[in-house]
């Protein structure tokens, strides 16, 4: 897949957008503004969490994913099945039925991302034995949380664990296995991920996964579920058994990832909770925690915006699967050699998207103006101006993106003294 650094999976349908400010208020990176009655996204700041999609009551926000037609470009295709998919069908308890049903909807084979998760857990347990390691280690499984760290908490980037995330490992193994089974060249094999979230679509297109070729396309879980609706359980041939463990499947829900680890672990889910934990970490607290699991979606990946089942119902379903079908399955990967090929060096690029100006002198003047303007604003953070907070509005005014008369305060008697802005810009 060609990488495109600016790829963004969250889009706005301008015709449906009513210009309400609900999405803007929810955005954790203040990437949204409402201008001329329509929401706009600053893609440099978008981490793809999907909060705006969840809040929009007008269906004006949507997420893109790859077209299923992409499968036709390859001679042989493999579906990477995430554990969250197992929670989407309340009446199907057997995970091998769900995974093997991929062959009924056009894939030649499947591979479990939960198995990749098992490998990550095994590698993480090995890391815990190293005495001079960073503390805590932060999971890289949720791309939203990684992006959030890279743009907003960039001091924490060195804590990101240097192990490939489950998806990347699964893609690597699936491709190798398909090449061996078919004798085909790598480029003839299409490896596709069935994603619970737009974030994994975006991260794949942006080249977040370093293994190349890794994933050839990312399909929305909802698109796949729609196709599976027409397949009955009886039609599914169980040709390949499930290899992932009980613990690997647990990664679909918050707290699942850490359940495979000893030591002091912490799991946070939901973007606001993730941010609160990152703030604690940033200020140097939580030094005695060994491992931090972060999921941007409430409840974990079962809460992703491409899922079709209620996250709590999906969670209950996964719990049942883990207790029944997979109950005796132990994680056997500790015995696997060559695990080291799934380590990866840390070369995360941080991006300062909050800088007021690339030129220090200009940024300096702008910050001063912001600090002077801010106390004059009503501190309502009402969003009527089209900026998510009074502070963001002040920044937008100083950056010349919006004029000061957009603030509600201007309609009252004691308006804002905008001379200071005029003076400085002249």
């Amino acid at each position: 897949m060609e990488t495109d650094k600016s790829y963004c999976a969250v889009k706005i349908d301008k015709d449906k957008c009513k210009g309400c400010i609900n999405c803007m208020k929810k955005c954790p990176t203040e990437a949204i503004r409402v201008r001329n009655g329509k929401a706009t996204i600053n893609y440099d700041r978008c981490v793809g969490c999907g909060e705006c999609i969840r809040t929009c009551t007008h269906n004006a926000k949507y997420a893109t994913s790859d077209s299923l037609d992409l499968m036709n470009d390859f001679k042989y295709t493999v579906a990477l099945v995430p554990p969250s998919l197992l929670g989407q069908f309340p009446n199907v308890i057997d995970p091998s039925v769900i995974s093997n049903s991929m062959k009924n909807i056009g894939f030649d084979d499947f591979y479990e991302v939960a198995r990749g998760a098992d490998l990550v857990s095994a590698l993480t347990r090995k890391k815990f034995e190293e005495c001079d390691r960073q503390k805590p280690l932060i999971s890289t499984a949720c791309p939203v949380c990684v992006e959030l760290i890279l743009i907003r908490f960039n001091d924490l980037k060195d804590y990101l664990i240097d192990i490939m995330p489950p998806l990347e490992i699964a893609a690597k193994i699936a491709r190798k296995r398909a090449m061996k089974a078919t004798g085909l060249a790598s480029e003839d094999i299409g490896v596709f991920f069935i994603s619970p979230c737009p974030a994994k679509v975006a991260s794949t297109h942006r080249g977040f996964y370093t293994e190349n070729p890794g994933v050839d396309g990312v399909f929305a879980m909802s698109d796949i579920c729609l196709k599976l609706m027409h397949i009955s359980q009886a039609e599914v041939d169980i040709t390949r058994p499930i290899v992932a463990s009980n613990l690997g499947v647990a990664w679909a829900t918050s707290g699942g990832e850490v359940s495979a680890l000893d030591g002091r672990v912490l799991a946070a889910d939901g973007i606001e909770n993730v941010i609160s934990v990152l703030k604690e970490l940033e200020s140097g607290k939580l030094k005695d925690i060994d491992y931090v699991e972060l999921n941007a979606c409430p409840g974990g990946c079962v809460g992703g915006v491409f899922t079709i089942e209620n996250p709590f119902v999906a969670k209950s379903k996964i719990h049942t699967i883990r207790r029944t079908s997979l109950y005796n399955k132990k994680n056997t990967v500790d015995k696997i050699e060559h695990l080291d090929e799934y380590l990866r060096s840390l070369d995360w690029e941080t991006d300062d998207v909050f800088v007021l100006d690339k030129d220090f002198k200009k940024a300096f003047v702008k910050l001063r103006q912001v600090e002077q303007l801010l106390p004059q604003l009503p501190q309502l953070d009402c969003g009527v101006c089209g900026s998510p907070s009074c502070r963001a509005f002040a920044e937008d005014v100083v950056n010349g993106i919006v004029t000061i008369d957009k603030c509600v305060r201007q309609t009252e008697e004691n308006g804002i003294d905008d001379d200071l802005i005029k003076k400085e810009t002249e």
Partner: protein
Amino acid sequence: MSQSNSILWSFDVDGKNFDSAGFASQSTKFKLRQLGLNGDIIKRVAIAMYEGEINMVIHAEGGVANVEVDEDKIIITLTDTGKGIADIEQAMREGFSTATEEIRDLGFGAGMGLPNMKKNSDELIIDSAVGKGTKVTMIFAI
């Protein structure tokens, strides 16, 4: 550069609220990032300011944190009206702490705050009077 050209902001540091301790240094850190300053100075300011902020919370029942930025330096002033420091030289020593058992249980009281503030700032000035309060000034060259 004249006084009026600097950027100023300040915070009330609540002495009763351990949860919010760190807010002033965190906000300051973010604003310094908006200036596009390099990561090293931001880190040093954040660490030193956090230690000073915590000291006001655990040893002085809170106070005020003032930040002044001009084009070549950052000045952080932490002012409280707490119990004051009797022997500043002693307080500056690594490992010296008057923190109670309860405070130590919360993870503070290693006696490393002031030494850390000294290490991370370019200049540290402590002005304190027992029973009156303490004023800590830290200067960082940009």
